[in-house]
């Protein structure tokens, strides 16, 4: 059990790391938002999942699972709303020819 938990935790940490690097290095708003969304969904999601597994069956673990579901719903919605708002504002996506 704990092997799975550790693996999931490491996976989450990796996605957080990758997302943060992407946030700093990617060229425009849309790609940065894309990277940040990974931190939320996959990163936080798998870390919470790891914690739920580590805690074992019980109320606390169930609450954590609920949180995972909430994050899986809320994270992508927020990214979608952000990207849509940026598009409405007329922010152009980056393309190689311009840069």
């Amino acid at each position, binding site marked *: 059990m704990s092997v799975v938990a550790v693996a999931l935790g490491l996976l989450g940490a990796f996605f957080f790391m990758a997302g943060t690097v992407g946030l700093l290095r990617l060229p425009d708003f849309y790609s940065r938002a894309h990277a940040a969304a990974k931190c939320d969904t996959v990163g936080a999601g798998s870390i919470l999942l790891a914690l739920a597994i580590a805690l074992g069956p019980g109320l606390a673990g169930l609450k954590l699972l609920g949180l995972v579901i909430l994050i899986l719903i809320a994270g992508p919605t927020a990214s979608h709303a952000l990207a*849509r708002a940026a598009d409405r504002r007329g922010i152009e996506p980056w393309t190689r020819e311009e840069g």
Partner: protein
Amino acid sequence: MKGRLAAAFATGVSIPMIAAMAALPRHGSPDQPIHTHVARHYIEQAPESANLVTQVLLDYRGMDTFGEVVVIFAALVAVLVLRARGERPLPAPSPSPIVGFIVRLVTPFFALFAFHVILTGHEAPGGGLQGAAILGGLVLMNGIVFGPERARAFLPTRALPWLQGAGPLAFLAAGILGGITTGFALGYPAHLPVLHEAMLVGVELGIGIGGAVIFSRLYLAMEA
């Protein structure tokens, strides 16, 4: 210049503050007055299952909590009285279908959670004000996504002047009831456990619903 002045002022104020904090008894050492005087009494007297914080807030220091609820109410009337009239309302936003669907999906769960926080406040962390903020946030979220009209639909227009005062009014009712049963205003009758429980829940519900209405009206006062 102005920024420098502000920075100098902030430094001048914070240095004695930090020095005084350093001179305070070390945090957590058990023989300090903060742990040996009234706080110890509260801990020793508390029943097993209770959330100590809510016990102190509603019982020993109920008067303060009443005052805080009135503060929030005062903030609402102060805003209502100064709101500009006859301004054109903002155009209703056209929500993305995805965001709209998700907001509609989570709204009932949100509300359920808010009432959970309100009703379990006297046994677990939580309580009226926290629940009120969650409920109010729910109304605000709907208003921001679907426009103020949708937020207004959550509030019963007729009962609004009564509901916005639900917090203070619940406290007043509990105060009078306590006065009759224990002989002291805002006392909680320990010898009548059912009534005691009902009073606690009633006050928490009053704070929760009244607070949620207040948060929503603060938002609506600005939007329309």
